[in-house]
């Protein structure tokens, strides 16, 4: 069963992959906002805003 969470920016549904784990980044297909999976409890997923890329990000 696919889990869906609500985008707090635009209200669209965000499909959470079945193998998602805490801290994984998910993106709203409607508005491109990025969220981080904060918790997964009994099939209920909580999201929080993902950090925005900083100048020192990279490899």
């Amino acid at each position, binding site marked *: 069963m696919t889990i869906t969470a609500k985008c707090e920016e635009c209200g669209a549904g965000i499909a959470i992959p079945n193998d998602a784990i805490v801290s994984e*980044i998910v993106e709203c297909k409607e508005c491109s906002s990025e969220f981080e999976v904060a918790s997964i409890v009994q099939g209920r997923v909580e999201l929080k805003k993902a*950090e925005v890329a900083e*100048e*020192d990000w*990279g*490899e």
Partner: protein
Amino acid sequence: MKLSITFDRLRWEEKWLIQEAEKLGCATELIDVKNLFFDVTGNSAKNEFGDVVLQRCISYYRSLFLTKILENFGIQVVNTSKVSETCGNKLVTSMLLAKAGIPTPKTYVSLSSESVAEAADSLGYPVVMKPFVGSWGRMISLANDAQTLATIVELKESLQNPIEHMYYLQEFVKRPPRDIRAIVVGGEIVASVYRNAGGTEWRTNVARGATTTAFKPDKELREIVLKAAEVVGGGVLGVDAMESKDGYLVHEVNNTVEFKGAQAASTTRIAKKIIEYVIRSEKR
């Protein structure tokens, strides 16, 4: 042994690394460092990091600070803070590569905007301007002439961060529309790919849309790549090179190498190689 993989943004690479660690039977924990704080004047960190830490933070400064904290507590980190400091700063990398006799693009550094134009004239146009710290090709500019350079400098001077008011200029190397990414793990090249620039983009970063093609490096390239990896301190690294008319030039060594692009073209399980190396490298 117990392994920790520290991160601040969970990428494809970290998920794959933990899967490979589990397959190898290595007790592994993913640790989101954004949740942590430390008594850095104390004697030890909580015993949550295990025997060795694979550092995978996407933020350079966060990664460097955490590695220094963990090393101060006697915890082994791959890569070391010394490697991180070297690879994270293009000035330090360029100097080290040149001093070791590894072919690298000619590079000038100006310590203020007053000397940039003269430096660029001396280097010869076109020149490539790069940030001292940064990745993914971000903020890398190509100035074909003095007017373009002046515009870039004016923009950088308007930024608040003082590091933006010093300038790293590199010769523009004539090369095919691709560069080379070699992933080196513990002194072994585990994958080599061409990164083919996408569309009208001149930069060859996968983050800029480059596609990858695997190839077998020749003897000259193997030697240069392995020497570059060794010179910066070894570990798990992404060595970037260009094909110039005079031979290969190493222009960058990446400390927290992303390998999704290389893996797409390679049959070697890169994450497995990394985990095996980390297990091997644990100090006993």
